[in-house]
C-alpha cells in the first residue's frame, strides 16, 4: 500500500503497510519528536515501548510511536512536552 501517508505536524509522511509511526518518522528524517524534559528531547530509543522516549499524540491520544502502527490520515503531533 505504497502512497499512504499520515500527518506529522501537518506534514505528509509516507509509510509502508504495517510500519510503526516511529519507523516512518525516522525514514522521513525526523530525529527529534518534540520537546521533553530538558535537557532531553522526545525521540526513538528502545523500540519496545519501555523507555517512553518516543511518545507522540496520535489523533489526540498519547502513544509510543514505536508500538503504534501508522495508518492513512492519522494526525500525529508532538506529545506536548515534559511528559513524565
Amino acid at each position: 500500500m505504497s502512497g499512504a501517508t499520515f500527518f506529522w505536524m501537518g506534514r505528509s509522511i509516507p509509510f509502508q503497510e504495517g510500519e510503526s509511526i516511529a519507523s516512518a518518522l525516522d525514514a522521513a528524517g525526523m530525529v527529534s519528536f518534540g520537546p521533553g524534559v530538558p535537557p532531553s528531547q522526545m525521540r526513538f530509543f528502545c523500540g519496545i515501548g519501555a523507555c517512553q522516549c518516543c511518545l507522540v499524540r496520535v489523533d489526540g491520544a498519547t502513544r509510543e510511536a514505536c508500538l503504534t502502527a501508522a495508518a492513512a490520515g492519522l494526525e500525529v503531533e508532538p506529545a506536548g512536552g515534559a511528559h513524565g
Partner: protein
Amino acid sequence: MADPDVLIVGAGPAGLAAAVELAASGVSVELAEQRGTIGGAIYRQPISAATPVPQAAAAKARWRSLSAAFDESGVRVRHATVFLGIEADGQVLLDDRRSGGVVCLRPKVVILATGAVETVHPRPGWHLAGVTTAGGLQVMMKERGRAPEGRVILAGNGPLLIAVAAQMARLGNPPVAVVEAGDPFRRPAAGLGLLAFPGLLREAAGYVLDVKRHRVPWLRGTRLAAIEPQGEGFAVTLEDARGTRRMEVDRVALHDGIRPNDFGLPQVGGRGEGPLVLHAGDCREALGAPAAGADGHRAAREAIRHLGADRTANSREGRDIARYRKAQALLARLFAPLPEALPFENLPDETLLCRCEGRTVGDLRALCEMPDRLTGREVKHNGRFAMGACQGRFCAANTAVLMARMRPEAPAPTPVDLTGRRWPARPVSIGALMQAAPENTDQDKEMTDEVHK
C-alpha cells in the same frame, strides 16, 4: 466469550511456546501482545514487502516451526494490548489500544512473558535525539528491512553488538565501528568452553566473519565514554588502555547487555482471589530465544498442573534451560568488560541518570553523601529516580549500582526497591482506565456513592 483459564502476556518465543502447549492440552488460553505482530524482539517479522533481516539458519528454522504450531493452535491474540497489572481484587487489567478501553479479565493463571530489556549505562550525551539502543536500531531494521542510513557507531558490551553489525553489513550499510568494552580474544578459557555449544559458535563465527569481510573496526577493550552534538551528528569520545580519541558519526546505538523486563510485574505465585502468576522466558531469566521457548513449555506445564489438567510431566526443559544458562554464563565471561573499561567510574556529575525526570549522577551523589543512610525508596522519592514515565526501566538498575558504589558500606538497594510493583505497570490513558470493566459481565454496576448517605 468467557474469560480464558490462562492469559499469556507477550507473543515472543516463551509466550508462543506456552500457548501452543496449553492449547494442545485443551486448556482455554489467550495471548495479549502490545504490537500488531507476533514473534517478539527476536523473531520480529518485517512489514509486508520488506526484505527480512538475514538471520542464522537455526533461528529461521526455529521460527518456522514455532509459528506454524502457533497458527495451528488457533489461540486468540489480542493485539495492541498492554498488560497493566493485577488489581487488589485479583482482576487482570489490559489496555486495549485498538478499542481505547481497559479490559478486566479473571483468568486462573497469568503467564508473563514480556521478554528482556536492554541495559544502557549512563554516559554524557546518552539522552540526545539520534542516540538509540542497539536493540532499538535492530527493531527498525527488522521492521523495514533496510539498514539505518549514515555513519552509525555501535557501542557498549555484549554479543548483540556484533550481531547487529553483521545484519547492517548484510543490508548494505555496515557501522563505522563496533566499540566493545570486553575482549573475547583475551578470554580463551571462556572461548574454549563454548566449543561445547557448536550451534552458538557457528552463529557467532558467522557474525564475526561478516563484520571482518566488511572491514568494520571491532574496537575491543574500548569504551564509548561521551557523546556530544556536532553539526547534524555527534562527536563521540572513545577510551581504551592507550588513551582517548574522537570520532564523528551520524547515529549512536548503545547496548550494555540485557536483563529481564520484569519492572513492576507482579511476583510469581498466587495471592487471594487473584490468578496464579508465572514468569516465562527472558522476563524470568534472560537466556535468549531457545531457552525462552523451553521455559514457555515449562510454564505451560506448571499452569496445567495448577488447573488440574495434569499430563505426565517430563523434565526435558529443565535440562535444556540449564544448558542454555551455561552457554550464557560462558558468553558473559567471554565478553566481560576489561577492568579499565568499568562503566561507572569517573562519570561527571552532570551526566543524566534518569531521562524522564532529568536527574543526574550529581543529584544521586548528593543524597549518597549525606551522613544519614537513605534507603532505596527514600532515594527514589527525594531524588525522583524511577518516578518518571518509564517507571525506572532505564534508570533503576543503574541507580542501584551507582548507589552501591557511592556508599559501599551501606546495604545496596535492588532495582525493585526503586520501582516497586504497583499497577499500572505502564502508563495508561485516564479516558481508557475510567471505563475499565469486566469484558464478560454486565458493566453498569456503578459503585454507590457512599458519601451521600
